[in-house]
């Protein structure tokens, strides 16, 4: 297997105070110049194999969407590198970057916001086909759109309707058809089911799984709880405040989670495995924010194993077994 995507040491920061005036603060009787910077993603590295679904899991605000948006090109990375098919996207020329839009597509989180309310479903799905000249004529583009809509489970006779006439699940199917319209190899799915009813979630997940097999797609699949990625992803990474704290195969993460945060997530999920730890209580402490990250381990004030070392020293990712890494000073010790 070859790898389709590699992310190396990616950081993404947002400067909140853009103008000089915003940067001035009144502190202890004197004016100081200080800028607030959101450190949304802090040096993460991972890769996605061709044909694989790679999961990225973490709670709200940990930087999952930011990672997705930077990979897909909606943000310019602050530092680090993104390699698609072995080639650095930063080093690509205009033509290559343009071609990348056909290879990499995205499915969005909110089906109520991801379709243009002023376009018919047909226009939404034919837009990428026509723009990238993947069809010789408008008719041909419409034929392809009908086929795509049919495949994702939207009856073709509904294609002349507007998005507001569809339910959330149907809208997400239309969003999937739009993403598939350019025949991409790689799809970033940013919490594609979290906004849907539980009863619909499984249908959409199954559709995504079937499409992956049919079209030999690779996925970067983002979720905020482990149960969603469990059936979908062969490997996954757990994120906490902009860093990857644990990464490994599905079996490794679910059978023997190493990082206390992963253990917490597993415990929070409704009884998944025998190894989930019952009765884990989260210490009632304030979480650090992405505006003010601590020097040491970002998780340590919620961790029941925390030692003084955790507060001062940032734990690096260390291999706990083959293909399974974890960023905890106590790895293997507890």
């Amino acid at each position, binding site marked *: 297997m070859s790898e389709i995507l590699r992310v190396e040491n990616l950081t993404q920061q947002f400067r909140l105070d853009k103008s000089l005036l915003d940067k001035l603060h009144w502190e202890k009787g004197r004016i100081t110049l200080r800028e607030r910077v959101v450190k949304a993603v802090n040096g993460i590295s991972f890769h996605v194999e061709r044909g694989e679904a790679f999961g990225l899991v973490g709670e709200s605000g940990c930087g999952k969407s930011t990672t997705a948006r930077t990979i897909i090109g*909606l943000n310019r990375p602050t530092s680090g590198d993104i390699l698609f098919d072995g080639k650095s996207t930063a080093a690509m020329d205009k033509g290559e970057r*343009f071609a990348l*839009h056909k290879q990499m*597509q995205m499915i969005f989180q909110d089906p109520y916001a*991801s379709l*243009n309310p002023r376009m018919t479903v047909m226009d939404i799905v034919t*837009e990428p086909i026509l*723009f990238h000249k993947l069809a010789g004529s408008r008719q041909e583009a419409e034929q392809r759109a009908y086929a795509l809509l049919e495949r994702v489970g939207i009856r073709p006779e509904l294609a002349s309707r*507007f998005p507001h006439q569809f339910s959330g699940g149907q809208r997400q199917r239309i969003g999937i058809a739009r993403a598939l319209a350019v025949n991409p190899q790689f799809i970033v799915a940013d919490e594609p089911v979290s906004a849907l009813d539980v009863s619909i979630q499984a249908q959409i997940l199954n559709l995504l799984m079937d499409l992956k097999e049919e079209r030999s797609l690779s996925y970067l699949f983002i979720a905020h709880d482990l149960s969603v990625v469990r059936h979908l992803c062969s490997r996954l990474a757990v994120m906490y405040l902009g860093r990857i704290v644990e990464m490994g195969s599905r079996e490794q993460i679910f059978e023997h989670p190493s990082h206390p945060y992963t253990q917490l997530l597993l415990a929070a999920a409704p009884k998944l495995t025998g190894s989930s730890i019952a009765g884990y209580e989260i210490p009632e402490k304030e979480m650090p924010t992405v505006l003010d990250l601590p020097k040491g381990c970002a998780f340590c004030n919620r961790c029941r194993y925390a030692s003084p070392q955790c507060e001062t020293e940032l734990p690096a990712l260390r291999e706990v077994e083959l293909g399974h890494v974890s960023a905890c000073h106590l790895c293997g010790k507890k």
Partner: protein
Amino acid sequence: MANSLKKQWDSLKGSQFYAHYRRSPVALLSSALLLIILFLAVFGPLFTPQNPFDLSSLDLSNAYLPPYPREGSDPAFFMGTDQQGRDIFSAIVYGSRTSLYIGVVGVLLCSALGIFLGVLAGYYGGWLDSLIMRLADIQLSFPSILIAMFLMSALGRGVGNVLIALMLVGWVKFARTVRGETLSVRKMEYVDAARVIGLPSHRIILRYILPNVMTSIIVLATMQVGTFILIEATLSFLGLGVPVTEPSLGMLCSDGFKVMFGGLWWVSVFPGLYIVVIVFAINLLGDFLRDELNPKLK
């Protein structure tokens, strides 16, 4: 394209907006008034007794006629005549053409400028945004009528100059509204989706941003037609607006004002009342549109 317009129209007819429109007395009343006003402006000259601004069609023997049914009046000139024998109703019909033309074309021009600058500021942000918005802030710190008066005294009278003045006065409101709406639409995931497809900015602006800020533009534009008719009337009343050869309602008011205290009150009052009716109808429709389409603008 035509097909998609038809679909848009069908979906409008099936919409809540259309249902509310049909059941709203305010909306129906204002639409009826505006239809009559437009009809008079377009077809009125076909049945007015004279062209009031063609001196050869005036007859001094008709001068000083009071409005019907007062004593000595002539039903053919039911709103009376002025000291030159000019029929006031005919004058109003012709004057309303100038007033409406200036109001509508002025709004088209200033909305084009305002939308263009607003969408640029909102979509690209950065220094361009700062520049455009600071300019708008400065302009908003002066009353618009003052700016219009200043411009007109610099440019001189004329329909074209009134339009230029109105455009320079009115773009700010459009730019600010469109910028704000663009900022919020730009954050929508469908705009991200368009960028992920690789669409260039101009296409995103035309197909994704503008159609979604259109409703607030329509509301604002409707209200602004009324405002512009009033500003133009004020300018013309002060002698800073249209030339005597193309009189507007405001100008008729001003002309009549000179003979008002000689007892010919109708020469000034009827054109004035007609301005009130026009602006009232426009504002009623604007209020309805605002409540229906964009509660944010309240």
